[in-house]
């Protein structure tokens, strides 16, 4: 029986590595970022799909890396955009379902505009769950949790430091602990 798995064909990540676009450490960095962004996505969209698709888009030229932007940062942006694309598709599908269920003559323009502006309850719920998951990840480290809270509120590093009364050294060491925890979580082989 002929196997469909042809080992001569490289995966996108391997191709990028073979072309020396990224290093092995970059791939691991990208894996942790992909796992971070794949949080909250449905089970059929895994972190692997997100990352390999982002690399494929760069390799095929569908996305051009701007000059002066490191490829890892660019690929992270592509993954973010793929995630947004997914949510846009979900919202569009929901809207078309709702619009299909209602007669457009009964609910003209303003109704549709309200529907457009309404927050997506499914996405809000997923976001709340993900925020809780992130809090659990750093549970027991009040300084890191304080920093996360400040980041969520859109505060700058200086504002967070003054809010938590942290010295620069304490702030930097808390960030280092945060990175270590994120890297451990991102490199694990377990489910996302």
């Amino acid at each position: 029986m002929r196997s469909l798995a042809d080992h001569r064909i490289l995966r996108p990540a391997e191709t990028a590595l073979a072309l020396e676009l990224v290093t092995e450490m970059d791939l691991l960095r990208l894996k942790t970022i992909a796992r971070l962004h794949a949080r909250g996505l449905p089970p059929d969209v895994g972190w692997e799909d997100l990352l390999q698709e982002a690399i494929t888009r760069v390799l095929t030229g569908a996305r051009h890396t701007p000059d002066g932007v490191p490829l890892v940062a660019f690929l992270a942006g592509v993954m973010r955009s793929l995630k947004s694309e997914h949510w846009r598709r979900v919202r569009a599908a929901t809207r078309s379902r709702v619009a299909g269920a209602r007669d457009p003559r009964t609910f003209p323009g303003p109704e549709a505009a309200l529907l457009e502006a309404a927050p997506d309850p499914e996405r809000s719920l997923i976001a709340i769950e993900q925020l809780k998951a992130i809090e659990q990840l750093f549970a027991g480290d009040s300084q890191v949790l304080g920093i996360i809270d400040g980041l969520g509120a859109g505060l700058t590093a200086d504002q967070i430091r003054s809010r938590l009364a942290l010295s620069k050294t304490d702030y930097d060491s808390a960030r280092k602990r945060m990175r270590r925890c994120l890297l451990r979580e991102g490199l694990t082989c377990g489910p996302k």
Partner: protein
Amino acid sequence: MRTKVTRTFPEMALERILGALEHELITAADQEILEAAEDLGMKPRMKGSAAFLGLRYPQQHRPGEFFDAQWMLAVLNDPRRVWLATEAPSRKPATTPDTPPQTSSRSKRPSRPPKESGES
């Protein structure tokens, strides 16, 4: 006087946090990555390291990677396979160490009564 209420939507807060965490990971040093991998018992410098699961080789092998799709459909729809799946388990009793092994079915039978003298 009405106080100003600033409400952060969870989606927005999550996006900000993920953006900041993403930046932390982009700027993480190679040494930090290696240390985190070592915490998990991984050695990324070695060939075939588990750290590269999903990157250089698939995290989960799917049957489709090895078998032809038509062949898989044929196997899954094969009535003999369905029959095999629904076959009752064998009724062979499990032998325990306490029970002596039975040599033959004859040993189960009760011993015959002795023949009487008048019998032919």
